[in-house]
Structures are given as structure tokens and as C-alpha cells.
């Protein structure tokens, strides 16, 4: 028998028994549908989380150093960190450790009053070093960023975040205008492009950047930093860099061997790994559940096929008498099971994609087609019919044509 005739026979048998075919398809359909939804939604969420995370931390080859022994929650600021991390620490890390390419400095505070004429805002003020741009992946939308000379000369220049700019300057023409941060006049030097949302969904754009030296000497009058970002030369070896930085800082801060660090190091790679891990554990569990649904679908196929085989003993006997071999019968029933589950699976995938886009719309995420998921769900539905069709098909080959034809 040719495969094409086998498919033809299977198709006719399916269309002659629509109700049975429907129930056989239903299980696979539901299983594949939920698998598709879970998979694409999971993939979607993971990508979105990663994107937001990247928005916040910028590049991935950095180690973040915060003052305090890991007690600080949320974003650091001058009001919630101990005064232990100094400008000299930053210079030492950059100068003494060959693993470190450069170190960016941050001294920041929140809710500082900023005025331009009659306009008021209370953004975060970030005193940053000139290399901040490299390490955070910010983009300057207009004007220029803080330069090394600005750092040296304690220039009173400001870079506006994209939330601040339209409030202070509705006309958009901000460059070289003088704003007042606290009581200190600053000249607007540039404006940043938007970073988008952070991991919590909040804005990362409600801020003004100024030179960190200016911040320390002319605005906040504090000699300690709230955060250092060390960029390592080889991202794969960031663990080694973490060890070296820890040793150097302990030495500089005169910490006894028995005492705890007075700073906290975080490598974004480690945090990322944790976040991804969480996401994939959840999706593994969900996949497990959907897989069970699939197997129930497979069991339904198998039992209905078994019933079908015993109902069709006469048909089997007749086919055998006109020349069908056992192999032909086996092939016919396996093809029938596979065709049912394949069509069921395709319907399931179609429904699943519809569902995915619905969920994506509700979560305000861009719809994504997880193509690699499609491949394996399609494969799964074909395979399901094959696997669960084998036993009933084998039973069909064991039908004795002599007995089946006798009435």
C-alpha cells in the first residue's frame, strides 16, 4: 500500500466518524493549545524582563559596588548609605587592578527641587563621572555629555533626563539655559534619550545628571559616593575581578580579617542568571502540566482507536482478504492516529497563537511568535499520534480475518 492511499483511507475514515474524530482531536488540541500559549507567553515575559533589567543596569560587563554590607534595599542615595566609599577608592580600583577597564562614580540624591523660571520639578540628581555614558549605555539626544574638563573644573553643567526636559522646557529649547538645582545655578549642556521602564515598571528617566565632582563640592557637600560601577576587561572573568576588588577595598578600609565587608558587590550577570532561572522554573512547571494534558489527549486517542479497531474488525478482515498485509493494516491505523493528532495539534497551535496575542495585548507586551516552540509542539502532536497509535494499530494486525469475516 502506498502512503498516499493510506492517508486517503485515514481521511475517509475520519470524515465518516466525525464525533469520534472530534473527541480524538480534542485532547491533543487542548494540550497543544495550552503548551503554545505557555511557551510563547513565558518566552515573551522572559524577554521583557531581560529587556527591563538591561535598561536598568546598562551593560553586562560591569560589577556594581555599593557602600554598606548588603543592607541597602532598592536604589542607593546619599540619605541611605554609610559614608564609607570614597573617590580615592574609585581611583585605586581603576589604577591598581588590571582586570578593571574603568570605574564610573555616582553620588545621587532624590527629590531635589529644580527650577527654571516658573517651572518646578523634583527629579533625582545624579552626580556622575564622564565615563557614565559608556557604562550605562545612555544616549545623548541633544547637546553634549559631561566631559573630563567639566569634572576637573567642577563645572556647573546639567544633562536632563527625558522626563524632566519637557516639564522645564515645553518648547524643547533647553541647551545653555540656566536652571537652579537647589540654590545652585547650572547650565543645561545636554539631554538624554529615554531608557524606558525599569524592572518594577517605573520610569528611569526622571533625573538630572551633573559632574560628580561638582555634586560633591558645590551641591551636596559630601565626600563619599553612593555607587561605583567597575567595567571589567573580560566579562567571563568578572568573578575574578569581584575577588580582587573585594580584597583591595578591604585593605583600603582597614577591615580586620574576621570582620564583614563594609560594601556590597553585585555582578549583573549573577543577578540576571537568577532572574532567568526563576522564569524558567515557573515555565518548566507549567510545561509539565500541559504535557500531562497532552498525555491524557494521547490516552484518549489510544482508547478510542482501540474501540475503533474492535468495531472495524470486519473492515480489517475484508481488507486482508483482498490483499492487505499486516503491515498495510498497521500503517493504516498509525496513519489514522497521526493524522488525527496532527490536525488536532495544528488547530491547537492556531488557537494557542490567538491566545498568546490576546494575553500579550492584556499585558501590553509586543506579540511574539516563539518559532522554536512551534517546531516542537508540531513535532509533539505528530509524535503523539504515532506513539499512542502503535498499540491499537498492532491490535488491528492481530485480527484474524477468518473469524472477522464469519457471520
Amino acid at each position, binding site marked *: 500500500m*502506498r502512503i498516499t492511499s493510506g492517508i486517503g483511507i485515514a481521511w*475517509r475514515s475520519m470524515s465518516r466518524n466525525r464525533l469520534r474524530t472530534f473527541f480524538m482531536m480534542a485532547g491533543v488540541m487542548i494540550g497543544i493549545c495550552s503548551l503554545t500559549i505557555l511557551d510563547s507567553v513565558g518566552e515573551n515575559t522572559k524577554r521583557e524582563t531581560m529587556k527591563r533589567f538591561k535598561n536598568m543596569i546598562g551593560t553586562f560587563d560591569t560589577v556594581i559596588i555599593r557602600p554598606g554590607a548588603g543592607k541597602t534595599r532598592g536604589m542607593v542615595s546619599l540619605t541611605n548609605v554609610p559614608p564609607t566609599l570614597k573617590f580615592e577608592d574609585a581611583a585605586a580600583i581603576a589604577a591598581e587592578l588590571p582586570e578593571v577597564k574603568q570605574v564610573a562614580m555616582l553620588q545621587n540624591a532624590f527629590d531635589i527641587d529644580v527650577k527654571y523660571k516658573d517651572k518646578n520639578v523634583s527629579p533625582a540628581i545624579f552626580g556622575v563621572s564622564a565615563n557614565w555614558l559608556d557604562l550605562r549605555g545612555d544616549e545623548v539626544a541633544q547637546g553634549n555629555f559631561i566631559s573630563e574638563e567639566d569634572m576637573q573644573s567642577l563645572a556647573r553643567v546639567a544633562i536632563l533626563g527625558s522626563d524632566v526636559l519637557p516639564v522645564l522646557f515645553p518648547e524643547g529649547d533647553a541647551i545653555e539655559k540656566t536652571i537652579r538645582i537647589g540654590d545652585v545655578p547650572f547650565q543645561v549642556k545636554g539631554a538624554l534619550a529615554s531608557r524606558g521602564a525599569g524592572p518594577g515598571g517605573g520610569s528611569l528617566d526622571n533625573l538630572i545628571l551633573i559632574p560628580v565632582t561638582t555634586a560633591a563640592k558645590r551641591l551636596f557637600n559630601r565626600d563619599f559616593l553612593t555607587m561605583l560601577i567597575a567595567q571589567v576587561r573580560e566579562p567571563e572573568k568578572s568573578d575574578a575581578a569581584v575577588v580582587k576588588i573585594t580584597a583591595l577595598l578591604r585593605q583600603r578600609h582597614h577591615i580586620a580579617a574576621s570582620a564583614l565587608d563594609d560594601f556590597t558587590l553585585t555582578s549583573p550577570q549573577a543577578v540576571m542568571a537568577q532572574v532567568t532561572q526563576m522564569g524558567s522554573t515557573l515555565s518548566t512547571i507549567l510545561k509539565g502540566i500541559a504535557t500531562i494534558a497532552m498525555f491524557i489527549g494521547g490516552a484518549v486517542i489510544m482508547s478510542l482507536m482501540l474501540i475503533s479497531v474492535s468495531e472495524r474488525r470486519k473492515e480489517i478482515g475484508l481488507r486482508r*482478504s483482498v*490483499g492487505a498485509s499486516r503491515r498495510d493494516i498497521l500503517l493504516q491505523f498509525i496513519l489514522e492516529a497521526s493524522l488525527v493528532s496532527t490536525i488536532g495539534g495544528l488547530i491547537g497551535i492556531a488557537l494557542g497563537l490567538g491566545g498568546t496575542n490576546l494575553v500579550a495585548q492584556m499585558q501590553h507586551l509586543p506579540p511574539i511568535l516563539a518559532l522554536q516552540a512551534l517546531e516542537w509542539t508540531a513535532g509533539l502532536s505528530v509524535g503523539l499520534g504515532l506513539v499512542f497509535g502503535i498499540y491499537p494499530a498492532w491490535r488491528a494486525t492481530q485480527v484474524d480475518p477468518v473469524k472477522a*469475516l464469519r457471520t
Partner: protein
Amino acid sequence: MIDVTHLGKTYRRGDGTPVEALKDISFLIERGEFVTIRGPSGSGKSSMLNIVGCLDKPTSGTYRLNGEELSGYSDKQLSHVRAWKIGFVFQSFNLMPRTTALENVEIPMIYGPGRVDRKRALAALERVGLGERTHHYGTELSGGEQQRVAIARALINDPPLILADEPTGNLDSAAGVEVMGILRQLHQEGRTVVLVTHDDAVAACAEREILFRDGVLTSDRKIAVLATE
């Protein structure tokens, strides 16, 4: 054509006790003969027909069809023989449910030639006088018509041997005469026809009669062919 020597068939019952359905059977049927196999029920005639039709295998002795010794044949080889050499006609017609006359006739082409030739199937139905009823389902046809569909199906791969097991058993006499007329025609075309029947009038169409009783061949004789009506 059919050469059976010292053939035996032993079944095992459910409880394991052996039942000898056929004992030391030998006969020879030449190409083109019209033979009837008769005997009371349980005499072994149906077992004999199933072995001749390659649906069952003997437990001892040999069976040659067209000189081919079939006892060592695999399932695939036997299926090939059934597809090309043998046409079955059953008492209960065995048409497929929810399937048109035409589709029924096409089934053996799937296993023999491997491709369905609709024109040939239509011609076969035409031949048995059902050219107008090709798209009717089995349930929409009379018994005689159903049996004629079955005969068309048996003929579609042009087999030299027709095996008919009580072909008129479920038919009224008029339909029976019609069916026997077709079988006789097939014989006249040169096909070998082996017919199992209880009915004397039906058996009278054959030219030779083989009698079975308790699994033993008791009589094998030529009979006078009745003049056709």
C-alpha cells in the same frame, strides 16, 4: 491450478484441546474448472476454502497454487497472492459501511496495483449491471445488488481464481439465480471457480463436486452440467 496434498489443519480450542478440522486432504483442481465443495456444517469445507484463499495456513501437507508452494510464504507474500490471484465472494457480502459501491470496488486496487483506477472500477460495476448505482451506499442497495458489488470487487484485479462461500445464502431465489449467472459467466471466461454451498440447485451449476464429512474428503466426482436456462 489448485494442488492440495496430504493437507491437515488442527486448531486449538480455548482450553487447549486440539481439534482436527481437516485430515489428510488431497485433490487437484485444474485451471478453468467449476467446483463445488459441499458437506454438513463442521465438515471442514470452510476451513478448506480459507486455506485455498490464503487467509489461513495448513498445519501439515502442502498447498500449491499455480505451481507455487505456499507453506513457506510470509504474510506479505500471501497478501500479494490474495491481491492478484484470488477473488473472494462471501455469504454476508462484507461491503464496507458508509462507503459507496464504487469505493468498495476500488479497495483491492489499493493493495494490488497500488493505485486506484476509477475507470476500471466503473467498468467492473457496469459489468455486473450496476452502472447506475455506483454512488449508492451498501445500505441503499438490495441484497442481490450488494452481492453483485462484492463480485465486482472480487474481479477488479482480474484474478484467475474466484472463491465463493455460500454466495446465495442471504439472497432470495431470484437474486440467487442472478448471482449464479454471473459466476457461471466468470467460469465460461476461463476463470477457476470454487463454490461452497448447502443449496442443491446452486451446486448443480458446477461441473464437479467435492464432499467433506468430519474433516475428511469423502467423495470427488464429476456431475452433469445442467443446461442453462
